[in-house]
């Protein structure tokens, strides 16, 4: 118990050192960005993701995919996804180099196709995550943050969309863990100000990083929810840039 308190106090101390004493909402958001897409994020990540989609009527679909991500601090991150199951999508590959540069490999037709950017609020593979939710974009670029409240474990931020920002959420309430400096809960509001989705995030420390290991997204309007579980996480493996090319996209999962 004492050890836990010491750790919390220490991390609070270190965190406050980073910000100075007058910590603001935007400072916290900046830190979140740095840890997820910035220079404090892992250089690359490799993991197996299980996606469980539960419809409002209780129907359950499970998908498994392998992902490789390369963090490019000065440009868009690269991400390669390969479906492992269900069998009819095994080896389907999805490569994102930027919002405009996405490739899809359909093994059944032996073809790579470039696909244009999706509607950002479209559901990703029928889940409750939109392409936007799974994107790896900076919050700070599109939202102004202010601290609404704080307790021992987290800050509660209110993120308001910046004028002209092309984002589906008008407002976000974000609980940022004081321990990991990553979001642990988000309430996402639609353009009419109505609560739309609720996201819960579990983060774990791997090597020197905090990484989300479970994200649950509830669509409050439709009553469906999706759970993303991350396992076999590896960071900073020095993934080759060749991995993020359409040529590699065609490779089957061994």
């Amino acid at each position, binding site marked *: 118990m004492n050890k836990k308190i010491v750790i919390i106090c220490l991390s609070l101390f270190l965190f406050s050192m980073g910000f100075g004493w007058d910590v603001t909402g935007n400072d916290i958001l900046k830190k979140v960005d740095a840890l997820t897409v910035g220079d404090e994020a892992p250089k690359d990540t490799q993991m197996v993701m299980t996606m469980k989609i539960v*419809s409002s*009527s209780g*129907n359950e679909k499970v998908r498994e995919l392998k992902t490789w991500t390369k963090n490019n601090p000065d440009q868009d991150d690269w991400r390669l996804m390969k479906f492992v199951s*269900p*069998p*009819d*999508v095994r080896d*389907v590959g999805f490569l994102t180099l930027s919002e405009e540069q996405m*490739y*899809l490999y*359909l*093994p*059944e*037709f*032996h*073809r*790579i*196709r*470039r*696909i*244009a950017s*999706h*509607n950002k609020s*479209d*559901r*990703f*593979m*029928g*889940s409750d995550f939109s392409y936007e939710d799974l994107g790896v974009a900076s919050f700070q670029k599109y939202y102004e943050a202010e601290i609404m409240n704080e307790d021992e474990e987290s800050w509660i931020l209110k993120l308001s969309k910046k004028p002209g920002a092309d984002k589906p959420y008008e407002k976000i309430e974000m609980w940022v863990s004081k321990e990991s400096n990553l979001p642990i809960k988000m309430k996402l509001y*639609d*353009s*009419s100000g*109505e609560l739309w989705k609720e996201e819960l995030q579990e983060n774990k420390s791997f090597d020197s990083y905090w990484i989300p290991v479970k994200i649950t997204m509830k669509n409050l*309007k439709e009553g469906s929810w999706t759970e993303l579980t991350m396992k076999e996480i590896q960071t900073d493996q020095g993934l080759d840039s060749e991995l993020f*090319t*359409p*040529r590699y*996209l*065609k*490779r*089957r999962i*061994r």
Partner: protein
Amino acid sequence: MLNQLFGFIIKYRIAVVLIIIILTCFFGFQMKNLYFENQMTQWVPEDDPVLKLLLHTGELFGSNQLVLITFKIDNKQAFSHQTLTQVKFLTEELSQNDQIFLVNSLSNSPYITQIPGGIEVRDFLENIPETKDKLAELKKSASSKDTLVNNVISSDGEWLAMSVFIDSQEDLIEVFKETVKPTIEKHLDSQTEIYYSGVPSDAYFANEFVSSDMKNMIPLIVILIITVLYLSFRHWKGIVFPFIVVAIAVIWTFGVMGMFRSPLNLISPAIPVLLMALGSAYGIHVVNTLYSQSDMSTQRLTKVQSASSQIATPVVLAGLTTMAGFVSFLTVKLKIISEFGTFSALGIFFAVIISLVFIPAAHVIFKGKETTAQKRHMSYLTPFLKVLLRFVKGHKKFILGITLVLILGLGYGLFIIKRQVNFSQYYPKKSNPRVALEIAKEHFGGSFPLTVYVKGESFKSAALLRTIRRVSLYLGSIPEASQPFSLADFIEELNFQLNGRYHIPENDRGVGNLWFFLEGRDELNQIVSNDLTESQVFSRVSNSEIEYMRRTRNKINHFLEQEYSKKPYMFNLNDFNENQTQKLRKSEAGYILDEINWLIQSYEGTSLKKESALPKFHSLIQDFPVPKDDDVRMRASSEFKNTIYSEFFDFIISDNIKKTLFQKCVSSLSESKTSVQDFETILKQVIPEEEYDDEIALDVASTFSFRVTESIRSAFTERAFKEISSLIDTDLTNNQNLSKKLKGLLYEIADNMVILPENEAPFKGNLVQISRIEQSGHSIFMTRLDHFLYISQIQSLILALVITFILIMIMSRSFKWGLISIFPIGFTLYVIYSFLGLAGIPLDFATIMIAGVCIGVGIDYVIHFTHGIREKAKQGYGIEEAVQLVFMEKGKAILTNSLAVMTGFVVLLFSSMSPLKNFGGVMVGAMFLAALSSLTILPSLLLIFKPKIGGKK
């Protein structure tokens, strides 16, 4: 007994009147619970299988809750930046609303298009251009899309449409009224012509019309009732008492409706009209009798008591027979009619009770001079009755002769009676829903969903998708169904954009790969269930005439029966030898030829003759393309080139090696060495050792081999298309949409999946799992409603006649009297129904009640007359004298009553909805005819057949 009862009422008159006032206040308070409900799905028995499927598909796919909104911009610039932006905002706002299941407009229609090196699936109006040229380009693009034209944009580009599907859990009318309509009108310019059609809007407009009719008709009813009463009595009590009786009966009836949460509907306005027309008669009778007995003597109370007991029996009897007419509605399966019957009967019951309780009590409480009233009571009718009596006596055989001639002459009308259960036909001609119907019909193929529901194992199955595509193509070929679309269309379009072939892949993995693009698209909700085991082919029926819908239903049912009474088999040609493969492909060609013909018909072309097309297909299958054929070589070579020279080619090799590899691959075609192993051997020979990798080589070799297979199939497709082109109009082969779909079907003959019905399959195959395939949607539901209407009519008619016949038999204790008495009313009904047929007035939710009401009211006249005859017989009169005396005595009452009732029904002519208008008009005629036949046919029958009365003949 009766005397004692009235003694009690008169003794406690103030308490009686107070109790009635309190009860009226109570029921009046209950009226606050009244509400409208004009949803037809509520009118059919809940266990009806057609309704059950309709509600099930409605819940799954939202298709029952469709509101089709059509709009036209005043300056005809539908494709302006401003209008398109409005449509986009509107679509977004409605889509975000929790009460809305799905919105489909030009803005969010799925637009699958090719981009350099790839494909894009997006909403059609993701970016709205601003320049004129770009807008014109966009319009051209929209007009060339089969999926958009006549669906979200009219073929002339002037009308736009938006389909809004309301969530099935919501109150459809409320959501339409509070959300859909205001949102549409908020976003679109005020000069925009906006029309709404579909079940929710129809129900909303019906409520609006009925509620406004109720408001407008009540003052009219009041004026008319006062006029009739004034003409009858010319005294305040004579006007006020029967008026109060009717008013209280109406309040009590609607109060009970409110108390039991029974909704008001399309035909509810007829209830106060009926109560006014019929209920006032009881009041008139009671007041009449009290007047005739009253004076200012000290025995006044006793006289009122005895007069009341005297009038009670005929009033109760008249009430009972009228109620019998309404009770006949209770047995029908249409809730709207049975509820109407219940509440009308209850209203009559209230009117009888209130007349007998309130009027005597109030009469004693409010004293006054009334002796002069009766004198003038309808005395002007006497000369007319005298003339009529003379005519009847002198021409009894002639009257019966004319009756017979009318029966023979008008009979034809009975066979041509139309039925109309569709709301859309009920509205005034220029009203919004009626115009909307015409626009939907003319520009968007109608607004009434017509669907075919299919339940199977999984709709990611290629075999099942080919099966529903077959249904979709059939629907497209019949003019009654417009714009059919199914899951198969999405998969085929995606396949076309990705692989250049508009067909369903030959296996489930192929479908699974394409599905990647569809996951998460809202449009899927409209055609496939979440667990992928239920799907529907969605179409719309363009004409709302019930006859048309019935024909459509029969046609589709016949098709489904023919197609699916045989089990469909699926074959994978990899499992068969060459001979068997050829046999299967030849059978498949015949099966697919049906689909080719349906497709050609949907583009208004003449279908191919099987005897000329099939031999051509068979000969092409006989000489199936092989790798060394020129057309195959050309295609395969081009594919090799694209693969080997692509920047993403798996092996990083020099141009020289690429060239060698390409040449070796092409040579393999001439030697027909195109298996995966053959290409692996080539790769091993050509790729430098340091670059070579077994696993990559296997992938590349299988890609090469796959491309050769594709080239063979494409060559077959082109050959078959060329053969077909010689058999159909050039215009059609030049139609890009048609040719891409035709080629897709032809490609399926060449691929490895074969679907055949068991009777056409040369061998037993794997069963395609279809556990249910059935027609559903609004149009089939309409035909079901129509069926119930028809059954209800027959049922209520027979029941009413039987009840009445039995009542009269009991009263007269004679079968002959029963027959004679029922004849005039039977004749009235016969003429009225023949008239309906000849005049083209359809049987609908209101006109169906003609028989019941007519019998209930008309039989009173017969009862009055025959009762009078028997009374006279008791006094010793013979039949001829009795007829003469009763004719003059009762004739006045019959005419007065029929005039009052007719006046009541005249009010319904002011209704906005055609069923009530027709009902009112026809009932005026029916009441006139009922009175006339009671005063002509009935006495003629009595004078000719001279039935026994009280022992005399």
